[in-house]
């Protein structure tokens, strides 16, 4: 292990931190959607990872169909919408009938969707290797501290805070945001005041899944789009949400930062066990503060 440390300079550490931060963006976007759904609807949506994966695959298809320079941008707009649509159908058609069941049932029901979507993706897109190129404007890399940082990662670094800001505005400043927050705390009261709680749930669910799809679309150029994406992201997203505090958007950001940074730095310091660092940090935090770092809505 010591041999690695001798090669680490401040610049490579800083550069690795930037890489970690750009990965944080994706984690945050996905986790925030999960947190929303968990906070307001009280549903641990295991299918969230599937929506992320579908977002990535849709991005691939739309980008390939449209082609050329605009392909990715069109896909970036269309794919999350497509995912949102699928989630709406899923919610209205099946989910809303189960809201009065126990949590375990809901959890397993979302898991059944993970199973179904996993194979449907395989049926529609096949199991071959799929990848899309980074959009032309982001190809190449910038020299940051003397080491290459892909331009696309810089793009992600900018998008992350923008999405966070947008979500903050949505939940704090808009009417629907306020209703959703109220419903998270006391759904009966909200219903008593005459608001259709069921519709609120629907809207929140769709927004949450939209975010998952957005995460998938953004991640598509950076890695190969394949089955298994759903499994790898969902556990990370869940841990981030719990660490941050259920239903808390800033908590999701904090959790994503912790996760992304410990992972990236871990790769620099101890690559073999890098995967262990984020889990170890999460476990430690949860043992000290089981309800998460920031206030949760439960």
């Amino acid at each position, binding site marked *: 292990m010591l041999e690695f440390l001798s090669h680490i300079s401040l610049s490579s550490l800083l550069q690795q931190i930037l890489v970690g931060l750009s990965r944080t963006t994706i984690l945050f976007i996905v986790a925030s959607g999960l947190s929303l759904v968990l906070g307001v609807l009280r549903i*641990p949506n*295991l299918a969230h990872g599937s929506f992320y994966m579908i977002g990535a695959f849709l991005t691939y298809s739309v980008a390939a169909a449209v082609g050329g320079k605009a392909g990715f941008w069109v896909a970036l707009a269309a794919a999350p919408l497509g995912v949102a649509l699928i989630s709406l159908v899923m919610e209205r058609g*099946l989910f809303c*009938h*189960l809201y009065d*069941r126990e*949590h*375990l*049932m809901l959890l*397993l*029901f979302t*898991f*059944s*969707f*993970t*199973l*179904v*979507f*996993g*194979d*449907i993706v*395989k*049926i529609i897109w096949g199991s071959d290797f799929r990848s899309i190129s980074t959009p032309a404007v982001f190809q190449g890399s910038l020299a940051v501290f003397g080491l290459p940082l892909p331009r696309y990662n810089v793009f992600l670094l900018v998008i992350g805070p923008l999405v966070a800001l947008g979500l903050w505005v949505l939940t704090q400043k808009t009417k629907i945001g306020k209703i959703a927050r109220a419903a998270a705390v006391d759904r009966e009261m909200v219903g008593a005041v005459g608001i259709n709680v069921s519709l609120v749930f629907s809207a929140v669910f769709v927004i949450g899944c939209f975010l998952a799809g957005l995460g998938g679309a953004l991640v598509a150029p950076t890695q190969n789009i394949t089955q298994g994406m759903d*499994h790898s992201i969902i*556990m990370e997203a*869940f*841990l981030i949400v*719990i660490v941050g505090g259920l239903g808390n958007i800033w908590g999701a950001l904090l959790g994503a930062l912790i996760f992304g940074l410990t992972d990236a730095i871990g790769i620099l310091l101890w690559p*073999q*066990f890098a*995967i*262990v660092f984020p*889990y*170890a940090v*999460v*476990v430690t935090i*949860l*043992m000290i503060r*089981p*309800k998460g770092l920031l206030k949760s809505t439960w």
Partner: protein
Amino acid sequence: MPDIKFNVKRVLWLMGIGLLFLFLPRFLPRFYVYLTALILLTGLLATSLNLVLGFGGMYQFHHALFYGIGAYSLALMLTKSVLPAWTGFVVAPLVSAGMGYVIGLICVRLSKLYFGMLQISLGSLVWAIVFRWYSFTGGDDGIHGIPLPKMLSASHGAYYFTLVVTAISLFLMYRIVHSPFGRTFQAIRDNPERCEAIGIHVRQHQLAGEVIAGFFAGVAGTLFVTVEASVFPDLMFWTLSLEILIMCLLGGWFTFFGPMLGAAIMVTLRTFVGIYTEYWTLILGIVLMLLIFFMPDGVLGKILKSRAQATEARG
């Protein structure tokens, strides 16, 4: 949950089933004997989960952890240590029980979803370590060709061993569920606040339940090594934990034998559906959806319920 009355009919039933299992290898081809052994140990695993899930009402989301730990403990002892094989079989479930204790200690402070999620994160941490410690645990490759004692690798030796161990374990678990401890445990599931109020140490009972469930999951893990002579990190991955949950649900988690039935259905479906189509997960997902909508009490639960209703109707 109806008590089993000690009557002649039941005893004959049990003996009949026992004889059936005993003579199975004589008339079934090898593959089906292997499959039966797999069903038995998976059923044992599911039943051990149901101890805390159905009878304890605890959200045990990462039960596979104890299973995997038991399997890996035995595998590592058989391949890396010079101790006689039989010590491994005894030590492995104890390691799982120990892990149950540690995890329980950390998690039982919380309830419901938090309990489950913390367990998943702890379990994932252990999984991550096993997954990446290539030099010790074989990492992603797993450990294969594990040397088993001659008696177990002889034809059908593994099957009989699994049969005996499963039968004994089921018997023990049955007794535990119907003991005063078991009744208290179920009372805690139904109304924890009331139990606290009358002086029962809820957390301690739950911790004890974790240890016992972990122990039997570890036993199931050792049986896995016996039947397959291999271990892989997937044995403690969260998707397996959910599959075991599904087995309990499928069979009926308010009954004792429900999980075994659920395990039998899952393993059989998985094997045979997997031969004809590669979309086994899709089928499982749909089955699960239908189950939740139409049969939340599970197969056995539904059967028992309809029989109870029939006897009521007959009055």
